[in-house]
């Protein structure tokens, strides 16, 4: 068990959408700094909801969430934005901006952080080469295949070297070779100190790495792949 402090800490967190039933009931979770965690569970179990809570897109109905050591309910706007800049997110539906090229989409976190284009241009082109999009820098999302969009979204999530990377089914739309390559990228990032949380159904992906596996079921979180 790592002795490093937790980057993310959930204590008996519950969440319901509107007046509906609770999607999460008593979720308790900790992500130690530098850890690599897979989150698995059946469809509709609340994986995406849990991830949204992790990247501060939702506020829990009850319970306590600590992000980078701070109570998420007490964060000021500036603190919330600063924390978001330390998190890279890859979502199932990619969330690419359609009128921006692949290059521009990937550069977005760096632009928001105020970095100059000259400072990151080489790294960005290199990263896009590495994820296999080197030939599509000027292409626009509507012209990309599902796999290319996914790689673009992953490149955007990792370009700013986040402290925490959250990915929802990151290899769902790519062929096995690219999937393995992406996993190597995550693994390498983890080795460099990035905390990784990946939600996936893909048992092969989970088997590729000796990482912690959390299972979400009936609104609660358990350790291990399956009962």
């Amino acid at each position, binding site marked *: 068990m790592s002795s490093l402090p937790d980057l993310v800490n959930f204590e008996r967190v519950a969440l319901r959408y509107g007046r509906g039933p609770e999607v999460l009931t008593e979720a308790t979770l900790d992500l130690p700094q530098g850890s690599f965690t897979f989150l698995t569970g059946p469809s509709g179990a609340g994986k995406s909801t849990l991830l949204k809570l992790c990247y501060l897109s939702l506020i829990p109905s009850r319970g306590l969430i600590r992000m980078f050591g701070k109570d998420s309910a007490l964060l000021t706007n500036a603190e919330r934005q*600063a924390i978001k800049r330390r998190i890279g997110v890859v979502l199932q539906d990619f969330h690419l901006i359609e009128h*921006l090229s692949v*290059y521009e989409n990937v550069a977005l976190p760096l*632009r928001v952080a105020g970095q100059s*284009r000259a400072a990151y241009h080489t790294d960005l082109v290199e990263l896009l080469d590495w994820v296999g999009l080197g030939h599509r*820098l000027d292409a626009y999302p509507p012209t990309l295949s599902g796999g290319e969009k996914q790689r673009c979204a992953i490149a955007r999530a990792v370009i700013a070297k986040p402290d925490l990377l959250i990915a929802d089914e990151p290899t769902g739309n790519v062929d096995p070779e690219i999937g393995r390559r992406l996993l190597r990228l995550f693994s390498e990032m983890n080795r460099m100190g990035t905390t990784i949380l990946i939600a996936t159904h893909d048992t092969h992906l989970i088997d590729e790495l000796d990482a912690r596996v959390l299972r979400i079921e009936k609104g609660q979180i358990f350790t291990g792949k399956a009962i």
Partner: protein
Amino acid sequence: MSARSVHPPQEAALLPHKLRNVRALWVVLSIMALLACCALLFARGSLRLSEDWQSQLSDTLTVQVLLEDIQDWTPQTSLARETLGEVFPGADIDVLPQAQARELLQPWLGNTSLPDSLAVPGLITLTGPDLNQATAQKALEAAGLRVNIDDNTRYADELGRTARRFVSIGYVTLLLMLIAGLSVNIFATRAGLIAQKDIIRVLVQVGASDKFIARLFIRQALRRGLIGAAMGVCIAFLLWLGLSLLGGWGELGWTTLSAGLVDTLWLVGLGCVFALICAAAAGVTTIRQLAFERRRL
């Protein structure tokens, strides 16, 4: 230039330039800017017209020489003319002939003819700079004449009041048009925020601050406002120029080059203010809307 080249490509706009219905918005903003410009030109023209009228009136004195006997008409009007000539050497002095002075009374009497013995007052008009009613009165009384002097103050005051009303109407209309421009931009920004919510969601997700996002909308609104204002200012300029060249509008139009130049500078200033109002409306609306959305979470 390809993004792959050694030199990084220029940063693309994060909000799309070509939005649906943007032309309709430009038309609305142009019309508002045009109406605001016309209101400004009307107010400034009214001010000029009033100043012109008042200056014309302040340069004129009308003296009535009151007579006991019609036989005194010629000697007393001549004496009054000489006295006034000494007091105001630079003024033009016109004595209305007796026959014309009698004609002026005719409308008050209908078909009845004036008796020949009626002592019609002598009428003298002075035109020139630095005329003073009190000085004229004193000099004429010292010469032994009984006179009434009208320096047109009452008429000038009435004109001034009327002109001020026109100027106020112009400025109130201008203010209303600017408020309308502000409201349209608030509405357009809200619509823009809804239309571009996917982009905003991504920006928020990568840690963009509210100010960063607001700046994008401010830039967009400033551009929109500048285009609308430029169109409005150009049309207003051409409209006023056309009216001035056609004539018949007096000082309401541009009778001198300097009036045209000063008004044009005012128009350019108003255009800039219009664009700034558009930008400010977008900025404030974006910040408030983002805060509102966050509270709704």
